[in-house]
């Protein structure tokens, strides 16, 4: 009399390979997904870098535009690295950017203003955005 063995199937010779196959597939997928996750982390960092370039440009521009409003002989027309300066708009003060500027005098009737916005990339690399503008006496009032 033949014994009844429900789990033995002599017809299918590849029975039991499916588990190995699944393990191989999952490991390949896992390695691939890890690489992909890395790619996305990199993309996030790159996007953050782009954002900081854009923000720093906007901030330097904002300070430069403040300078356009003040006359050449204003007491504010000096080189400053004060984070509480009235020329830095309030909305910019808690953003992690270091805003400084230098004012030089190419001649008696003009001032060269250089605004520098510095920040740290990945915690240690210092990056800068620098904008320069030259005001000429009379021109600012005439505009």
């Amino acid at each position: 009399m033949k014994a009844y063995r429900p789990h033995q199937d002599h017809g299918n010779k590849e029975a039991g390979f499916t588990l190995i196959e699944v393990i191989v597939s999952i490991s390949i997928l896992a390695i691939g997904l890890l690489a992909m996750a890395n790619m996305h982390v990199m993309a996030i960092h790159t996007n953050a870098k782009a954002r900081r370039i854009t923000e720093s440009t906007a901030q330097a521009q904002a300070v430069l535009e403040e300078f356009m409003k003040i006359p050449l002989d204003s007491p504010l027309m000096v080189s400053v690295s004060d984070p509480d300066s009235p020329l830095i708009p309030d909305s910019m003060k808690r953003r992690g950017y270091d805003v400084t500027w230098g004012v030089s005098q190419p001649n008696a009737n003009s001032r060269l203003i250089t605004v520098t916005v510095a920040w740290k990339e990945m915690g240690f690399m210092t990056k800068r955005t620098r904008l320069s503008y030259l005001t000429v006496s009379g021109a600012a009032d005439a505009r």
Partner: protein
Amino acid sequence: MKKILFKKMDDKGSTLIIALVMLALLSVLGIAVTTTSSIEVQIAANDRTYTHNFYIAETALNEAISELLNGTISVVNNTEVDWLKSKRIDPAKIEDFKTWLLDADNHEKIAIDMIEGGINYKTYIGYAAVGPVAVEGGMGMGLSQPVVRTYLIFAFYDKPDEPNRGQIIIDMGYKKVGS
């Protein structure tokens, strides 16, 4: 016959294929994301270059105004140049206008040194003034009104060794009151 073929088409090996197809799709997605963000950085950097060059070009504009106020500027009186029609720049002639403006005979470089980061930008920026394109006021009907002359001022930033990077042309109308 057909039935036998169907019987042989089982699901053996499909897991790996599905995994590989998924991986390929995700790779495409990942590459797209990386490309987009690196383009994003380029856009941001280009915008920064543009802003930087714009303010430098505006320096030339300032000097042009100051010279115009002092009356020491040499203005182009011929408003009949072919790129300028009815006191506006004809958009179809914009290339002609650029050629005209960037020709050293037609513009003036600024006199003041503009040094930033070791580069003296005064050699890359300049201006040209055209006009007066309109004169208003003056004597008429026994009433004396101040004379108002309208000028067009063009300022530019052009660094010849990087011609396609941040070339700026600013145009401005300027009204001068008085003689």
